[in-house]
């Protein structure tokens, strides 16, 4: 429960623009999702953290964006039986224009301005090659640097 609540706190704080609170709540959620192998949740969390880190840690944020791409692919490689979804008159099963996507687009805009398109692609490629443990370690390091005690 605390992992989910922490992740929800990160979501709300990031969406409101309270990046300090988002970064404060993020480590519990990130470690929890790593330890429990919840890759799609970890990907969502990393997207939010990348947004919070983008102004102060653009290189780290760009690497995280690349890693998220890999995580999303990994979670979609697992299968859910098609008829396990709600009926067709419910809602689509993905949210291509939801708030997390909106925040990712904000991150991309910040990174394009700060590191440029070419460097952004390089850093994303680097992130895409990272294992889950490595990207979490890199993210937590970035969080520590951005929030000196």
């Amino acid at each position, binding site marked *: 429960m605390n992992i989910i609540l922490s992740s929800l*706190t990160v979501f*709300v704080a990031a969406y409101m623009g309270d990046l300090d609170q988002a970064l404060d709540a993020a480590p519990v959620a990130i470690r929890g999702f790593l330890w429990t192998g919840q890759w*799609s949740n970890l990907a969502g969390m990393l997207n939010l953290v990348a947004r919070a880190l983008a102004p102060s840690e653009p290189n780290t944020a760009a690497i995280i964006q690349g890693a998220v791409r890999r995580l999303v692919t990994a979670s979609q490689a697992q299968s859910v039986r098609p008829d396990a*979804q*709600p009926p067709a008159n*419910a*809602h*689509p099963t993905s949210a291509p224009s939801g708030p997390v996507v909106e925040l990712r687009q904000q991150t991309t805009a910040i990174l394009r301005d700060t590191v440029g398109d070419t460097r952004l692609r390089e850093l994303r490629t680097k992130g895409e090659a990272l294992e889950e443990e490595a990207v979490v370690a890199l993210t937590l390091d970035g969080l520590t640097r951005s929030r000196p005690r």
Partner: protein
Amino acid sequence: LPAENENFLAAMAYAVTSGDIDLALWLLTAGAGQVIWYNVSLLPADALLLEGAVEHPLYPRALATVALCAAERGDAPTAERLADGALAAAEQLASPDPLVEYEVHLARARAANVVGAIVAEAAHFERAGNVARSAALAAESTFALACAAALFAMSGDTDRALPLAEEALGVSRQLRAPGPIAWSLIAFAAVVARRDPEQARTLLAEGCALLPRRGE
């Protein structure tokens, strides 16, 4: 907690070894015990294979519990198979057990989460909440509706999320339980974050204040 964990596992081992089907299925389906079953290395399915298990009134709920465990491990196909089995078994019960359908929807929600199908996950939580509400399972309905509200909000569908968040918060306040209240407040904050950031900030602060701090 580690001692309780050991006691729980020992009790289950005793129940399975001695063929005590009542005890084994009770341990498997006891609400507080499920946290333990989520965290053991193998699916806790031995109890389902005991003689007389299939005819036992707790069998459908036990199948649903193991389905939820499978979903929590990311094994969506097994979760679905067990969930289908739980619903089929529940049809044979002399008196309905609403927790079966509730847990089946939770299992399906968690299975949807594995692939990042956030709207499907939210819809299954909403169904679980509806089942719990109909059965007057207040704590369960609060949890499921708050989950649904938060997930719909994350997917951008705040219109669908808002009434669920309002209901979850109302019921959790009636329960006077800090955990569910905190959960509902933070879910509510997620719903109003875009249209009313100040209210979201207040709700988030109130919810976080109810959570135990590290070290407490």
